[in-house]
């Protein structure tokens, strides 16, 4: 039977099979498995049916723990149920997995395997998550490629139904989950044939039912638990045979043959590797090459890892084997070896001990590879086979890194390559926002589905959310592609953004005769001279072809704006000659129609026009014989940067982090802060320029700047003596800090992302030309050098004395130095201004517990991080534990700090005679209510430390120990501010239980919820903060329910400070809320409206959206301060006017709401009515709260009455 060929990624392949053979799906988003859930949700919403002609239900839960609970419940009630997850998500499912397996329940969990956070979080792939689930009792079936993912998902389901053992079906996160490949799609008939309906009915027959009542999940005592636990053994014994039977059945139906262990290589191989996952593809490719070179090598692919069948395993190995290397993509510190290595050693030893090992006892070594998607290439694999030739091969080795600490790493020749000549290998450098990846995914589909070629696409992103770089790796050709690694020998390289030719040595990977396609605004005649020395030299040396296009011009002319995707895609097809020109254009246009048809004819026409105009603007450039530009040595980071930044961080910035050695890495995940300032990204084409003649010195631009790149300072005139000649300043208009002071507003143009929010909020207009403001956008490049000098000078001007700054005023608060700067957050980010504000106001005494999500990525993702320190070396200390435990993590900070304070105070009192009672009283009695108090306290503690050190000399014994203790604790006597930060996914969903508990604890912690109303980091999935009527993933037809009122829930405790703020609507209220929250000696919760790219808005104008949200009454501004109760005042103060505009006037400013009117117009109308009702009701309630009189107030009034 001819089956459809599709070009899809691994996640879609898994989701496709799983969707069609299940009835209930419960999920929770986590990278890199999120797309599986999203696919099934979209299919379910569109009414796609499974093989039983039924539409599966898809439910997003509040956590993976919740998802696994729902799965368990659905399974217990007879539904075929599945879920998708990765990493920490799988860990959260483990408790339920034990139960599901213990109850012999059929299910398949599809896992995109990912690293588990240890010294750091990593979203990338390895097997540490699935290995952590080994003991659950789930069977474990591995897929190595996109095709296998689709196949094994079915084989797993058929096997679980027959064996009653639940299955983990896993594949490598990113390398397999995100690799786009042309595969054969299984038909629904294939699935129907594989899935035995009688087994499905048997599964359902085991369901709980009041019509046939039983109890399951009992509690058992020492007398029987053990025996009962052993009852499952026969099922595990039978399981491997069942899986093989299903694999054989699959082979009969579909044709592809699989075995529990598949051997590839020479029949008389002596050196054999054993591996599972995507790395097996690269090993197979290498083995094929090495055997063609008459090397006696082979490899064994492990498919069914649990239950591990020793019999099948031994039988799969050639009898000639002499040396075995077991490759594990995981690390178990402290173990005698990684799990699969130990399994293999055990299997062979057991057989040996039984006396029926069919070959001589081989050498068995184990090695680790590919942690967190570390590259695993034929060169490394060859290195492993070479190692096996040695008399004493290194055991417990690592490959792919340089371990110069414990010397585990193997050497290999990186030049070794086996890329087949006939395979096209293209690398495309693009910007995240220019559509390069989308276009390449599209090209792979066109080639895959329009030719007989095999095709593969893999996409690499940097970790920044603004100005991110993408590199697409595309392979296609007549030979099957098993190259599960990045391209380092390319025959086509495309540079979609001109600036990249300076940043990346992209032609380094080009082979001789390769083609280079460059998008440049420089005309054909002048382009050669515009190329850097290295590019010119490579083009000549490698005899390359050069093509250029001005894609920006074509995009502009055809209305495409910054999206050059279609244009560059057309160039690629025009040059690569995969199809004849006409055919290529026809295929591109057909694909455009398919992709954009639903967005309107005009969009399709615009893209068509771009295709048509591309060809006439594409030119081949003759390569001259001589290099015309001189080589320029440039440092990635300034020579003033700290050594670690120069030697380590700089390599990561350059994209050469793979070359760093183990000894260069901190061993406990501790890194210096404040490194973003060394990474001058220069990503903004336009930057704000200050016009002092217009400026009113309000500092609004400073407070809204998401990247802390626009700053204000007030200083005395004498500071100007070394100022660069272009440095701008004006007289400071206020007298708060003295007479005759100067004011400067300075932009860090090399760090600015060009979001324009500062310009938008600037209230001052040029009186003669009202289109101009006090800050206006100008091209960055001509300003770069001048402003770099100005910025450096600006930084040298002393900061204002913090103790004199009136923080309650927006303007004054913005003279405080931000200790969170130049993060990789999205341009125009709505979260970072709040984060920055915390760092300005309290940064020098702050500890941050950050929930996983956007804020942990822009806050803590290498290479550079934004949390920084002031000139005294003080600044926020930051850590990220998990997604689900952040509130508890932060509470732990407080508990420790409080304990340290208590201990310090006790010791202090003990040694009052030696230290002086006045000093001690000063320290103990200082309430530290404001900056001046804190400054004073620091002074006392300095004196204390000095005294303590003096005392050390004369003290001995216990006293000496106590003094040392006190020295280590004395800094805790200065107030510490604990901030617990995270997004709504954490606060409203996965971490809510913990948050609730922490708020109820009464402890002095400050919680900042950056409420974007969706899971922003993983791509806009619905959370309980998502408002009614808004579209989000898992709410494609608009969220039917209202947003959870987190503030109201917190206020119900009575002793929690709660504020709801929106910087764009009322910056003064925001600033005051932060001050009060921090000052409150108890738990505080600030819910901050954070606009987001997931809202589908113009980020440069987003403060208008914030204002509209408040004006509509949807987002109420309030502060609830329990302190006011003590003053007989209503603790609740409603601070917005509300209901000034209808809710829809706000909502329809945003695509998240508006798109529903285009997809489900009637539902949109209905939901909008309901959403308006929500607003009205909520507003009414808050108004009533605003007029409440506290009980104490009434009582006091009563007393007054009595007196009268």
């Amino acid at each position, binding site marked *: 039977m001819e089956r459809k060929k599709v070009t899809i990624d691994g996640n879609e392949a898994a989701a496709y099979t799983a969707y069609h053979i299940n009835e209930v799906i419960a999920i929770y988003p986590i990278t890199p498995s999120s797309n599986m859930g999203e696919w099934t949700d979209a299919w379910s919403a569109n009414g796609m049916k499974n093989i039983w002609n039924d539409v599966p239900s898809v439910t997003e839960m509040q956590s993976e723990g919740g998802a696994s609970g729902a799965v368990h419940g659905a399974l217990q009630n007879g539904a075929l149920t599945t879920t998708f997850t990765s990493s920490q998500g799988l860990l959260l499912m483990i408790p339920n997995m034990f139960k599901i397996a213990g109850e012999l329940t059929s299910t398949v969990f599809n896992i995109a395997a990912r690293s588990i956070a240890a010294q750091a979080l990593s979203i990338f792939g390895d097997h540490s998550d699935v290995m952590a689930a080994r003991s659950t009792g789930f069977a474990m079936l591995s897929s190595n490629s996109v095709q296998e993912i689709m196949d094994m998902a079915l084989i797993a389901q058929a096997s679980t139904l027959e064996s009653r053992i639940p299955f983990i079906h896993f594949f490598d996160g*990113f390398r397999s989950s995100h690799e786009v490949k042309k595969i054969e799609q299984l038909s629904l008939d294939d699935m129907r044939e594989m899935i035995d309906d009688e087994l499905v009915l048997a599964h359902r027959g085991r369901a709980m039912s009041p019509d046939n009542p039983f109890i399951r999940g009992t509690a058992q005592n020492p007398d029987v638990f053990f025996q009962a636990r052993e009852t499952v053994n026969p099922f595990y014994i039978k399981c491997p045979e069942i899986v093989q039977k299903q694999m054989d059945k699959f082979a009969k139906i579909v044709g592809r043959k699989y075995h529990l262990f598949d051997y590839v290589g020479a029949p008389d191989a002596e050196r054999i590797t054993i591996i599972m996952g995507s790395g097996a593809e690269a090993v197979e490719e290498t083995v094929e090459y090495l055997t063609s070179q008459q090397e006696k090598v082979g490899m064994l692919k492990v498919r069914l890892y649990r239950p591990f069948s020793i019999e099948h395993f031994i039988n799969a190995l050639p009898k000639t084997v002499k040396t075995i290397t077991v490759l594990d993509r995981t690390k178990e510190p402290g173990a005698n070896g990684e799990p699969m290595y130990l399994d293999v050693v055990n299997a062979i030893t057991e057989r040996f001990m039984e006396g029926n090992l069919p070959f001589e006892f081989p050498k068995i070594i184990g090695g680790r590879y590919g942690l967190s998607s570390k590259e695993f290439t034929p060169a490394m694999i060859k290195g492993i086979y070479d190692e096996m030739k040695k008399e004493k091969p290194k055991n417990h080795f690592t490959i792919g890194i340089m371990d110069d600490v414990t010397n585990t790493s193997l050497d290999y020749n990186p030049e070794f390559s086996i890329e087949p000549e006939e395979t096209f290998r293209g690398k495309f450098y693009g910007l995240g926002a220019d*559509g390069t990846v989308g276009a390449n995914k599209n090209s792979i589909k066109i080639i895959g589905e329009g030719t007989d070629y095999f095709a593969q696409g893999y996409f690499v992103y940097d970790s920044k959310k603004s100005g991110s770089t993408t590199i697409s790796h595309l392979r296609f050709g007549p030979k099957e592609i098993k190259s599960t690694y990045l391209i380092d020998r390319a025959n086509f390289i495309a540079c979609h953004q001109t600036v990249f030719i300076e940043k990346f040595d992209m032609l380094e990977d080009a082979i001789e005769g390769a083609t280079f396609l460059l998008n440049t605004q420089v005309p054909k005649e002048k382009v050669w001279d515009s190329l850097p020395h290295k590019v010119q030299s490579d083009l000549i040396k490698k005899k390359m072809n050069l093509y250029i296009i001005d894609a920006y011009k074509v995009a502009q002319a055809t*209305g495409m704006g910054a999206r050059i995707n279609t244009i560059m895609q057309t160039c690629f097809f025009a040059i690569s000659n995969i199809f004849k020109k006409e055919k290529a254009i026809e295929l591109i246009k057909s694909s455009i129609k398919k992709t954009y048809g639903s967005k309107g*004819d*005009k*969009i399709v026409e615009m893209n068509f026009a771009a295709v048509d105009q591309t060809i006439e603007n594409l030119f081949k450039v003759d390569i001259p014989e001589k290099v015309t530009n001189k080589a320029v040595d440039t440092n990635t980071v300034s020579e003033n940067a700290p050594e670690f930044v120069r030697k380590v961080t700089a390599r990561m910035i350059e994209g050469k982090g793979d070359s760093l050695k183990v000894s260069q890495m901190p061993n406990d995940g501790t890194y210096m802060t404040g490194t973003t300032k060394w990474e001058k990204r220069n990503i903004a084409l336009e930057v704000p320029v200050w016009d002092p003649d217009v400026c009113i010195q309000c500092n609004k631009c400073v407070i809204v700047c998401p990247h802390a790149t626009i700053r204000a300072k007030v200083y005395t005139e004498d500071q100007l003596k070394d100022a660069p000649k272009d440095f701008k300043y004006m007289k400071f208009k206020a007298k708060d800090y003295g007479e005759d002071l100067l004011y400067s507003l300075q932009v860090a143009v090399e760090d600015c992302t060009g979001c324009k929010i500062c310009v938008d909020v600037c209230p001052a207009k040029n009186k003669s030309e009202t289109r101009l403001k006090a800050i206006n956008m100008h091209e960055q490049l001509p300003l770069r050098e001048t402003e770099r000098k100005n910025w450096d000078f600006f930084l040298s001007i002393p900061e204002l004395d913090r103790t004199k700054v009136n923080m309650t005023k927006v303007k004054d608060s913005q003279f405080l130095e931000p200790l969170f700067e130049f993060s990789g957050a999205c341009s125009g980010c709505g979260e970072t201004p709040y984060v920055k504000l915390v760092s300005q106001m309290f940064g020098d005494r702050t500890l941050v517990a950050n929930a996983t999500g956007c804020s942990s990525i822009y806050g803590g993702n290498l290479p550079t991080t934004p949390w920084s320190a002031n000139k005294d070396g003080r600044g926020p200390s930051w850590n990220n534990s998990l997604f689900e435990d952040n509130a508890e993590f932060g509470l732990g900070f407080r508990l420790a700090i409080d304990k340290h304070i208590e201990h310090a105070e006790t010791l202090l009192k003990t040694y009052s005679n030696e230290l002086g009672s006045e000093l001690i009283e000063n320290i103990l009695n200082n309430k530290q209510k404001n900056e001046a108090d804190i400054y004073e306290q620091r002074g006392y503690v300095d004196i204390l430390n000095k005294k303590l050190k003096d005392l050390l000399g004369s003290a001995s014994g216990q006293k000496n120990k106590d003094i040392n203790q006190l020295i280590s604790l004395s800094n805790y006597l200065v107030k510490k501010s604990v901030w617990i930060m995270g997004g709504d996914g954490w606060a409203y969903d996965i971490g809510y239980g913990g948050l609730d508990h922490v708020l109820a604890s009464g402890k002095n912690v400050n919680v900042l919820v950056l409420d974007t109303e969706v899971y922003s980091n993983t791509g806009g999935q619905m959370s309980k903060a998502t408002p009614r009527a808004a*579209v989000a*993933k898992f709410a494609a037809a608009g969220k039917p329910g209202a947003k959870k009122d987190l503030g109201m829930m917190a206020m119900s405790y009575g002793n929690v400070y709660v504020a709801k703020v929106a910087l764009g609507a009322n910056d003064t209220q925001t600033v005051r809320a932060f001050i009060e929250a921090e000052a409150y000696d108890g738990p505080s919760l600030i819910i901050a409206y954070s606009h987001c*790219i997931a809202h589908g808005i113009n980020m440069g104008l987003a403060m208008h959206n914030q204002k509209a949200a408040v004006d509509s009454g949807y987002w109420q501004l309030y502060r609830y301060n329990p302190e006011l109760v003590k003053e007989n005042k209503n603790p609740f103060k409603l601070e917005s006017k509300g209901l000034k505009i209808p809710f829809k006037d706000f909502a329809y400013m945003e*695509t998240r709401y508006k798109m529903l009117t285009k997809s489900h117009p009637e539902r949109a109308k209905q939901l909008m009515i309901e959403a308006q009702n929500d607003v009205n009701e909520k507003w009414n309630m808050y108004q009533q709260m605003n007029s409440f009189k506290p009980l104490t107030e009434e009582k006091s009034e009563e007393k007054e009455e009595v007196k009268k």
Partner: protein
Amino acid sequence: MKLETKYLGLKLKNPIVPSAGPLSKEIDDIKKMEDCEAAAVVLYSLFEEQIEHESFELYHHTTVHANSHAEATNYFPDAGNYTTGPDEYLEHIKKAKDAVEIPIIASLNGKLLGGWTEYAKKIEQAGADALELNIYKIAADVNKSGSDIEKTYIEIVKAVTSTVKIPVAVKLSPYFSSMSWMANQIVEAGAKGLVLFNRFYQPDIDLEKLEVVPNVVLSTPEMIRLRVRWIAILRDNIKADLAATGGVYTEKDILKLIMSGAQVTQMLSALLKFGIEHIKEVLTKLIYWGEEHEYESLDQMRGSICYKNVTDPSQFERANYMNVLNSYK
């Protein structure tokens, strides 16, 4: 008094037609208009530019951040097919036709020639009884002459009238050098009716914010005078039905316009101000006035004070201006 009126070949029960505006966005309001005796309804305008804008916006915001970060392939769910074209408007025409007996006149504001004809055809297919072209162009280009602009108008009318079979009326502004010539050209191009006049909403300036701001002001009764003049002048000089729009509040306004030669009088500001029920009230007063003054039908008074039928036609021309000035003395 008989109120029956013919307009664009449609038989109307009276001359009051709610003009294009927000009131026709809800089917319930259209039903209410019928219940209050409106003779026909001109639906709110379909703006090609707005459709394009919304389509681009949707495209931009749902794609601009896609595939730019490892953790998020995109930020919006695939909601299947979007209604990004004029479908919503066309559906509205169909619903309005199903809901009421009175004629439904669609209103169209195009951008490019292709858009005008494409959407006109779709409107016809959706079942509209007639089409009003709302040609709204501000001649701000110093390189474009008056005749260039006039040509554009004529091209649009020709293109649309040769594309659809339903009658087409054209809503014009009064800002042509030769209004009569232009009116005639439009009719020659195929228009069956002229709707006089379109009001260009004039921007305002916010002095505090130093910004140009939109400022929608309802029409005022004195505005009908301009309509009276041109309807009276054009009544017998062009072969098309004339509709008055702008400033129609009372039965007296209607009487004046009908006497000048209007077939129908369109109302919007009055309905926004007083409610849809206002139609009924005005109609009652209109009948009362007609019967009190012993008119048998509207046709009897229609055009009775037009350019041709008045004693001194120059009253509608420059002489009228001089009289106005003199009246201040």
